[in-house]
């Protein structure tokens, strides 16, 4: 029974080939002397043909609800959310890095690659956030794919560039710049709806200005204060509003701290009278909890937005709601300091 199946597979594989190739295949088969060897050869052939049979799957199944819409592939939540805001009903947006996943080390699956082959626009943040993006783009054969690095041109905004920190969007005005880049890219891909994109962008832009004003106003009295964070992701936020960050870990969130760094942070917490240690979704809270226990601080969540969970997305959270939550947490942490 299994050998019959294998020969059926071989025969079907042969069906597409010319007569000459058929003969050559038959000759190849004859070289295996006994049945056992033939079965083994058949199995090898079947294993090798298996991926080819999959390649024939219909690709249009990948973007089911995207009929008549611009198909946009995004990397992380802020990109996804910005495209959603600017694109409105005219775009179908996919987020490649699943919610709650560390984006630096993540790699796309073959399903993601197939979606990308069918997509119109690929939006990534850049600045070292998605280290895999270059490799992925090299591997894509899709000629009509437009690529946008959303953090492009932020240097021209007159803001200080924080070296090695990709979390550009934590400064609301730079988030607005990213949305503008997205607006331009969408208008290029889909000129028919350029006016709608512009209108959506302008609505989002004024919300960014509001957010920026709220941060400026509520953080004004804490100029030069220190916050302790899980990893140094808040460079742009701090430089925009005059705060200083002390990262338990460096820009990369994955290393474990050493004993000397722990001592340094504990000493700084005491020197600066800090009352709160911030943790974030993607980093284990153990280190933050240990420091909090040692110093009698409380712990609170401060989200850099790239690690937002699926539940939070499903609950309707977006860039603005999380940024306002962050602002409340910051004020709470810094205000506690004045009391103590």
């Amino acid at each position: 029974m299994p050998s019959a199946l294998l020969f059926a597979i071989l025969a079907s594989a042969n069906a597409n080939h010319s007569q000459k190739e058929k003969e050559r295949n038959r000759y190849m088969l004859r070289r295996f002397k006994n049945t056992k060897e033939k079965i083994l050869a058949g199995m090898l052939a079947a294993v090798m043909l298996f991926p080819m049979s999959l390649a024939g799957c219909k690709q249009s199944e990948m973007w089911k609800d995207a009929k008549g819409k611009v198909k946009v592939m995004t990397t992380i939540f802020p990109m996804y959310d910005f495209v959603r805001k600017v694109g409105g009903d005219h775009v179908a947006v996919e987020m490649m890095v699943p919610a709650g996943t560390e984006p630096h080390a993540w790699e796309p699956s073959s399903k993601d690659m197939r979606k990308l082959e069918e997509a119109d626009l690929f939006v990534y943040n850049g600045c070292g956030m998605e280290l895999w993006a270059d490799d992925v783009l090299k591997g894509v054969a899709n000629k009509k794919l437009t690529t946008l690095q959303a953090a492009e041109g932020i240097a021209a905004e007159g803001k200080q560039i924080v070296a090695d920190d990709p979390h550009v969007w934590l400064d609301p005005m730079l988030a607005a710049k990213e949305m503008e880049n997205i607006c331009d890219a969408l208008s290029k891909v889909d000129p028919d709806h350029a006016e709608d994109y512009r209108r959506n962008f302008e609505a989002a832009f004024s919300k960014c200005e509001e957010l920026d004003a709220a941060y400026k106003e509520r953080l004004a009295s804490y100029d030069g204060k220190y916050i302790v964070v899980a990893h140094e992701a808040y460079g742009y936020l701090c430089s925009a509003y005059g705060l200083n960050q002390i990262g338990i870990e460096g820009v990369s969130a994955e290393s474990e701290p050493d004993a000397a760094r722990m001592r340094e942070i504990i000493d700084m917490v005491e020197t600066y009278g800090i009352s709160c240690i911030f943790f974030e979704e993607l980093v284990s809270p153990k280190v933050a909890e240990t420091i909090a226990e040692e110093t009698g601080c409380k712990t609170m969540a401060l989200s850099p937005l790239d690690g937002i969970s699926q539940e939070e997305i499903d609950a309707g959270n977006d860039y603005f709601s999380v940024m306002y939550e962050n602002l409340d947490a910051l004020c709470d942490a810094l205000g506690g300091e004045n009391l103590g």
Partner: protein
Amino acid sequence: MPMIFQYTYMQRALLVGCLLAVLVACLGTVMVHKRLSLIGDALSHSSLAGVALGLLGGFNPIVGAMATCLVAAFAIEGIRKKLGNHSELAVAIVLSTGIGLAGVLSGFVKSSADFNSFLFGSIVAISSFEMYLVSILAVVVLVAFLMLYKELFYISFDEQAAGISGVPVGAVNAIFTILTSVTISIAARTVGALIISSLMVVPVAAAMSIARSYKTTVLWAVFVAVASTLGGLVLSFYQGLKPGGTIVLISVGFFLLFRGIRLIREHGAQVGQKEG
């Protein structure tokens, strides 16, 4: 009081580190003699699968980790007996299964933060709950190890002979397997898998280079493990080195040192023979 003792996290790191070093060196001596030196890697990787199972199934991931560690350890015991000369393959097979399973299951876990916090321990971030857990574990495992010392000693060298002379091999092996898997599943979460899987093997290898009996092997292995842990923590505290890697490298340093001592000894013995 020296500065290193003024911080609670360092007190915990020193205490828990030393307790686990003693435990793991004792367990490691038996494992190395049973030719299962990579069991630490296999079990700590299998415990990842358990964590994922726990998160997916809605029960405590630490319980999940212990359960898969137990299954994996018994699987190694079972496969090992069937493979005869190639018994070391048992560890490799279980290691691969553990990694594979953890990889597939982790794909279903929504939040990688939960996952990470159960997977990776750090010796400088130990909660008070973990400290008590490790203390209790240490007492239980050490008492069992001392009570079964003779039996384990016999089994380590020759299982068949041990069985013939009346040692309940099956029961002793089973108890020991349980102790090992519980220790590894807790320790990997508390101080990290790297420290545990290395301290199971390297100190024992160092000890075997200079010890002249089983007992002295155990004692030297415990000494090397504890000294490496203390040395690593002190260096990490004053020099800012990563604790896990430093501890492991110091133990490798001990291994090289002890091999050197052995070479000199052997050379001395040869010279002595020639002259005599």
